[in-house]
């Protein structure tokens, strides 16, 4: 099907309808299988448990704790969100999405679901991590804002990476190779914010880190739909 035929099919739908339809589809598919949420919780839970166990009986510094928490979030994000478009291509439903929705709408729909899933996972991981390690929190709003911004940025970037690798060879290995270096700035800024949120050592530096996380999020979301449209293509 060429682009003009696909466009004709979309004439009766608006952006919001298309985005809403993709989000509903994602939630319904997830409610049916519960696979992504379950895998995400299990993966991050096992990571947190292993890291906490490795530090059992030792005092955990805020620097190490912030790094460990981000490592757990990265594992959860890259391990599960990269499936978003890979699954569509494997099941042969990618072409249907191309036919019924504009590329930007597909991206935003997938992103909104991924962001909700990642935010939920981040909240669960943070709670589990703080419980198991016994690390205290001095600045709860900073912790919450950083985790929320980080989850949105992770979802935005990994959704794009998922589309990028969805038709490639060695997809599962490629996902980590491609996504992790791109997320380094986010992790650097996020660790700086979380470290200060945990020990309250320098509130201004912590909020600067948190602001950096949100700026990274804005830049990613500003460019990602266009980059997604380039890589998603027509049938």
């Amino acid at each position, binding site marked *: 099907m060429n682009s003009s035929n696909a466009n004709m099919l979309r004439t009766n739908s608006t952006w919001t309808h298309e985005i809403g339809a993709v989000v509903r589809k994602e939630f319904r598919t997830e409610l049916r299988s519960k696979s992504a949420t379950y895998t995400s919780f299990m993966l991050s839970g096992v990571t947190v448990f292993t890291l906490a166990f490795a530090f059992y009986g030792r005092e955990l510094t805020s620097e190490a704790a912030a790094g460990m928490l981000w490592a757990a979030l990265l594992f959860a994000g890259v391990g599960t969100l990269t499936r978003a478009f890979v699954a569509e291509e494997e099941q042969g439903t990618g072409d249907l999405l191309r036919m019924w929705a504009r590329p930007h709408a597909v991206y935003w729909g997938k992103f909104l679901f991924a962001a909700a899933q990642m935010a939920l996972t981040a909240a669960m991981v943070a709670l589990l991590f703080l419980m198991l390690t016994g690390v205290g929190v001095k600045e709860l709003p900073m912790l919450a804002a950083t985790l929320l911004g980080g989850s949105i940025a992770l979802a935005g970037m990994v959704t*794009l990476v998922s589309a*990028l*690798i969805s*038709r*490639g*060879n*060695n*997809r599962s290995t*490629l996902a980590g*190779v*491609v996504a*992790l*270096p*791109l997320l*380094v*700035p986010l992790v*650097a800024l996020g660790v*700086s914010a979380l470290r200060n949120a945990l020990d309250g050592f320098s509130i201004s*530096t912590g909020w600067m880190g948190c602001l950096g996380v949100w700026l*990274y999020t804005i*830049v*990613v979301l500003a*460019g990602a739909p266009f*980059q997604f449209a*380039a*890589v998603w*293509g027509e049938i």
Partner: protein
Amino acid sequence: MKWLAFVAMIGLTVMAYFAPPINTFPEPELARMIFFHLPCAFLTVGFVLFSAVCAIKYLSTREIIWEYRGHAANAVSLGVAAATLATGILFSKVQWGAWWHWDPRQTSFLIVLLLLGAYFAVRMAFDDETTRARAAATYSSLTLLPILFLVFVFPRLPQVVKNSLHPSTTVQQGGFSREYWTVVLGVFVVLIWTFSWIYKIHVRTSLLEKELVDQDGKLEAAGNRTTAHRVDRSVSVREQS
């Protein structure tokens, strides 16, 4: 022109031995590694930014030449980045006593190298030329934000500068003599010329490869002999029924 570059490099190497050593370094004589290290670092950033421009041009025009240019620029910058890192590691050993110090600049450059490596992993993952070009260009444009952060922002953060051993202040605050700068800039010019030449050869090779594939396709379409290997796919009984 090639001979001129060769002679210039010999001249600059001789000049390098006459430049007065910088006594702020623990091993002033061995600090001459900077003559090669610094221009390589500048060149890496230059080629990486150029490849991002090529990627954006490809995505907006869909002209394959921009993909070839971006690929060539990334290939050159990977080589130059490896040279930068290798000389940086040697510098670290002789000046600071260890091969790897987790210095912020060393680490950020290693991540730039990983981003470049991932670009080639993306390219290798696709067999179809158009899909490969799209994916590679998208990835190259995606790397622009992390690279700008890692090269221009991260090493300048106050908490990072405080813990860095990297002699950035020596360079920025006039720690180099005029002779030092002459050699650094001279090597920079010669390296720009040399790597631009390699870049052009890379682009030309890609164009010739494409022409060969196109010719092969035309021969196949005309029913003549072709060098292409046919792909035989096994078909299951269930698929046939």
